[in-house]
């Protein structure tokens, strides 16, 4: 019997069901849940991947290429770099009759990552994906990338690529990610400010020297701006990855976090003093813009930004290696190319032909010259045009020379996506609010524990120690 309701108060009649056994409504609810649970479980994830072939994302194929095998690239390169890639793709279309390539552009590496995650749920994948150096790893753990070693042959061997860069995309003796638009940070400095203050025309050799110079530069008036020594980029922990190494620390050893070692803390404490005690630095909303307009004297920024700063700056500036302290601290960065595993054999083979074209010959040279990224293929490294550019503007050579002391990111930064977000939070807490470095890094380690636990089993299985 249902409950009867009086005004303002209801009285539920006690039935045998409410006294002990489940009611009809409860049974119905439980039945629905029991039926719904497997349905929900089946809604997410790829499920059984045996023989799985996912569809290609939609798009337009021009009539002239209608009978070719279509290859879709999801690219994170925008603006000028997108034009350079398209020019190379146009050259590829002219060079053969079998493959048509459609480049679909996203705003950033993160944009590609989000879209790819969603598209896997929609059971669609592109053929080639541009991944950043800290993103492809998690797709590797999820086993959605195609192993590439078997595609190399005598006409296009692994020695076509810079050895150090290729090693970054190699796990368990197979290749999953080939270098494409790779970079390292450079030390940019305003030569006119350095000259006016009486500093030498070079990058500081150590972080200590940088801080000493900062006290001399800060407060100097330049082009209507009161100059600070360094604009910090809080939206990217890439530079902190370098400085933590330079102070002898690291994010992690394997998946074991090492953020609270004295050396790691010293790296962040250095930044806190630089900003909040010396007053030599600040957290910038647009550090590159500030440097280009003369609001700050020095900047750590990617090799890929060199051409942009050259266009924007109205003063002479120099580039140098990143400072060291007790060790070198130069992280590699940028993007590379992977082929998605769950595409048809024909699509994957055609995708490989595209990678081959982009990574060799004039296309590789044009990409390096046009994008400003460091050359990562043999043809580009040995090219006369790139040598001539370096001779004409030695700043481009700095990034190439610095590769000798560069290294890939720490394991936690590569395989635990939360590491980068937590690191950004940590450095912003210090740069912006001046929080104690040890407290911040201890908190970061604790926040990351569950994230590392989630990844550990898969990491040990797919990468191993």
């Amino acid at each position, binding site marked *: 019997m249902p409950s*009867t*309701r009086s005004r303002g108060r209801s*009285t539920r009649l006690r039935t045998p069901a409410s006294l002990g056994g489940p009611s009809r409504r409860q049974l119905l609810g439980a039945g629905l849940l029991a039926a719904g649970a497997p349905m929900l479980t089946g809604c997410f994830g790829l499920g059984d991947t045996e023989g799985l072939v996912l569809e290609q994302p939609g798009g337009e194929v021009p009539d002239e290429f209608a009978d070719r095998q279509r290859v879709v690239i999801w690219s994170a390169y925008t603006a000028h770099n997108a034009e350079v890639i398209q020019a190379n793709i146009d050259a590829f279309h002219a060079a053969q009759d079998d493959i048509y390539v459609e480049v679909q552009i996203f705003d950033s590496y993160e944009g590609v990552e989000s879209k790819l*995650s969603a598209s896997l749920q929609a059971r669609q994948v592109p053929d080639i994906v541009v991944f950043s150096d800290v993103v492809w790893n998690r797709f590797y753990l999820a086993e959605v990338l195609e192993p590439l070693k078997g595609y190399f042959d005598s006409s296009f061997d692994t020695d076509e690529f810079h050895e150090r860069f290729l090693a970054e995309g190699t796990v368990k003796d197979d290749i999953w990610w080939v270098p494409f638009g790779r970079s390292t940070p450079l030390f940019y400095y305003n030569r006119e400010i350095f000259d006016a203050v009486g500093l030498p025309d070079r990058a500081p050799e150590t972080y200590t020297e940088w801080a000493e110079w900062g006290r001399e530069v800060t407060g100097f008036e330049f082009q209507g701006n009161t100059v600070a020594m360094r604009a910090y980029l809080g939206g990217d922990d890439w530079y902190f990855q370098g400085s933590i190494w330079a102070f002898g620390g690291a994010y992690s050893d394997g998946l074991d976090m090492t953020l609270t070692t004295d050396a790691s803390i010293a790296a962040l404490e250095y930044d806190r003093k630089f900003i909040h005690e010396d007053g030599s630095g600040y957290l910038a909303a647009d550090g590159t813009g500030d440097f280009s307009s003369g609001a700050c004297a020095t900047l750590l920024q990617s090799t890929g930004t060199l051409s942009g700063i050259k266009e924007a700056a109205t003063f002479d500036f120099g580039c140098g290696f990143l400072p060291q302290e007790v060790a070198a601290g130069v992280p590699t960065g940028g993007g590379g190319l992977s082929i998605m595993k769950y595409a048809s054999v024909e699509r994957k083979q055609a995708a490989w032909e595209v990678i081959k074209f982009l990574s060799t010959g004039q296309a590789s040279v044009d990409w390096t010259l046009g994008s400003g990224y460091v050359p990562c293929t043999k043809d580009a490294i040995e090219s006369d045009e790139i040598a001539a550019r370096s001779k004409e503007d030695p700043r481009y050579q700095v990034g190439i020379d610095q590769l000798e002391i560069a290294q890939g990111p720490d394991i936690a930064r590569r395989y635990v996506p939360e590491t980068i977000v937590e690191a950004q939070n940590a450095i912003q807490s210090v740069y912006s609010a001046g929080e104690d470095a040890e407290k911040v890094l201890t908190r970061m380690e604790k926040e990351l524990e569950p994230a590392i636990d989630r990844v550990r089993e898969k990491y040990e299985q797919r990468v191993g120690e």
Partner: protein
Amino acid sequence: MSIDLRAEASRPAAPAAPTARASDRPAHRSRRRRGYALFALFAFPNLALIAVFAYWPIVANLYLSLTNWDFISPEPLFVGLTNYTSMLASPSFHKVLWVSLVWVVVVVGISLLLGVLLAALFSKKLPGTSVVTGIVFTPHVVSGAAIAVVWLFIFDPNYGLARVAFNLLGAESPSWTTDANWALPALLIVSIWKGVGFVSIVYLAGIQGLPTDVLEAAKLDGASSFQTFTRVILPLLSPTTFFLVITQTIGAFQAFDLIAVMTNGGPASATTTLSWFIYEQAFVRSNVGLSAAAGTVMFVLLMLITVLQFRFVEKKVHY
């Protein structure tokens, strides 16, 4: 056991059954079937859309909140209530709730206050009112991302208008979006600026719909303008206020575009609201389970707030 017999007693007596009921006639049954078919024809598309795009995501979200999943692994791993317990125990989530609370209270409170004052001013029909009304309302219809870009320029401590304004006052502009103490106030300013036009227009419509005889009676009784506003107009606007409190609260909880363009939830999580937290967990940290758990918390919070508003605030509303 007690049964309220008053309800039973108050029911109208059932009509005596006719000897041959109208509903038994074939023509009537056919008409009724056509009626049902027509109802289903009109209702089904809407019901299906609501089920697929509203109720199904809620159920699916609830399921995902009980799993550990990164979007790309073959399938989610059931972990029970782990996401809820770890999230609710985390100091960083407490901070997120605090930021959300500040956001909602400040944005809704100030928007309503400024909105009603502006509406009172507009209702005076001073020269140029229609132009000013249009100007105040415009930010509401402009895209949040576009507004955020403009305000980023205004807030730039090196080149922005804020710098000029502060320099005129002999002070230095704060680093609005990169200083952990200023970032939230900066976003609140923009959010209120964007939303106050809508609030004022709704209030203006409310004021224009008030019965003139009541206002004239207040005037005849010698009430001052201030007294008329606080003791007559505001109480009569309570249905409008009630509507705005509910819609603005829900809107404030969902704030996303300004945060995405201006601060990305930073610096140091200073502007991470619940909606940004949900996005960040899912699409930046690839932690779908925790994101879904936060989504469920937001759903429950909004439902609770709305129920409480209907239960307690509505009693003070004069219709």
